[in-house]
């Protein structure tokens, strides 16, 4: 619940005409972070990332 408040405030900060350009980068970073957190670390994600690139 607490994290939701921060994420809402973060979104509110970046949903701004001058800052919108940063949103895609932020989303990619957040998804990468989520993936790492959900899978428990780089060792699990590494083969997937290797295949992608």
């Amino acid at each position: 619940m607490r994290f939701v408040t921060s994420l809402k405030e973060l979104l509110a900060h970046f949903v701004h005409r001058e800052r919108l350009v940063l949103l895609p980068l932020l989303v990619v970073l957040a998804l990468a972070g989520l993936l790492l957190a959900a899978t428990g670390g780089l060792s699990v994600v590494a083969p997937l990332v290797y295949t992608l690139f």
Partner: protein
Amino acid sequence: MSAVLGLSGGYHDAAAALFVDGALVAAIHEERLSRVKHDPGLPFRAARACLDLAGLRAADLERVTFYEDPYAKLERVLVHGLRGLPGGWRSLARGLEVQLGQKLFVLDRIAGQLGVDRRRVGFVRHHESHAASAFFASPFERAAVLTIDGVGEWTTTALWMGDGERLTQRSHLELPHSLGLLYAGITAWLGFPINGGEHRVMGLAAHGRPTRRAALDRLATLHPDGAFTVDAAAFDHFRDLTRGFGPGVEALLGPARPPGRPWDLSDPADRDRADVAASVQQLTEDAVLGLAHAAHAATGCEALCLAGGVALNCVAVSRLAAEGPFREVFVQPAAGDAGGAWGAGALAAVEAGDGRPAPLTHARWGRPVDPARAAALASALGLPARRVDDPAREAARRLSQGQVVALCAGRAEWGPRALGQRSLLAPATDPAMPDHLNRVVKLREPFRPFAPAVLASHASAHFDGAPDHLTPFMTTTRRVRDPTALPAITHVDGTARLQTVTAPAAPTLHATLSALHAAGGPPLALLTSLNGPGEPIVDSAADALAFLVERPVPALLVGDLLITRPGGGPP
């Protein structure tokens, strides 16, 4: 009842300040409790200590305010890092890891650790908290406010207008044009730590001449409107903000001095570095004066408040007070980032409708020391300890005999200066004393000066000018009238960073200086912080005893308890 808590931290100098019904109740640096110098964490110990002093629980807090905007800070790290690509990719990755992994969720951590509803936890901008700490602590109803530091979210320097309970930003400068980062860069180039070594550069500057100013002027340009621009490429700020300087600085000034190498000012290389210190100090003073003239023209105010790390440069403040356009100048004792906690709390109090706090007239806002605890510890350690009827007279007697006395009285100080609550006192007339304290007690560079504390009523007899808003907090310097009479506290340039002492502000220190005067001596003493090398200032009785055991100081007074060190002087 309305209780609001201001917090700073997560970078350096974490602190907490508690206001109840608009009145300051406690303000504490985290480092004094954690014993980690310039503690970079979050101030949970300090916050709980503030609540304990007020007899409150976290659930009683109406508002908790953090001193900077975590989302704008993430934006800055992102944009700044992108500008530094491709060379600065490591710095960007490290910055994002810290921001996304910890700092982005700082308000959640605060809510969770303190047990406060997350909806009660908010933030103000970094320079707004600095401005509030300067203006709301000042005695002025209307004043210009300058905030000058390394960097907040984006802002490095800002001009504010303070009027009653309102603070309005008038203009600002953004990264990379930062006077604080410029000074920090030269600090790092000289081999001193950033965010902790800047005052050493200021002390070293008096030993040099500003012969390298032309080189410094290639790193920063001062404009006629008070603004300045900094050559960010030379400092490598886009690639790495943590090192402080880049190859461009070394190309201009020469190779950086390795940290930790002993200083020898008879060595031409070290003399040249002292000249660089003098040059950056002069540049900083000129920049601050330029900003002050611009602030005066823009606001028409007669009073100026300063905050931010650069405001701790007491030599620049002294020149500003003497040569600047303002009739009155005020710098509160914790002008650096710790003061952001005070400002954030004061802003929350004003927003809650509690009005602006009373002007800050003393620095005794920390935890009280417990003589009974000191007695128990002294007994356990086998140290001779006894109660004395008049601790001030005992301290004065020992000072008259040429001894160093450690003084621990009442509540600890707010701000980086020891102001008579947790201080080491020594005779100001002993020319050998600075060397003894630097080499034996404090283990620091031989060029570091020591400050005097003088009865406010007698200050003008020993120092130029009268006491003002700056002198009670040691945030300015004054010329010593007779340097030969006071060699221990006179810096090489003939000045001293004096503290003028009144009974309400520092009762024990005032009584000690009065006793010295009554005994026929000058009503002043050398005063330095009570701490060992690399340590935060002593806070508790246990810290004070640890200092006495470790350092060769003959006597420690904790309240009315006198503890002596065997073989360290008369009991």
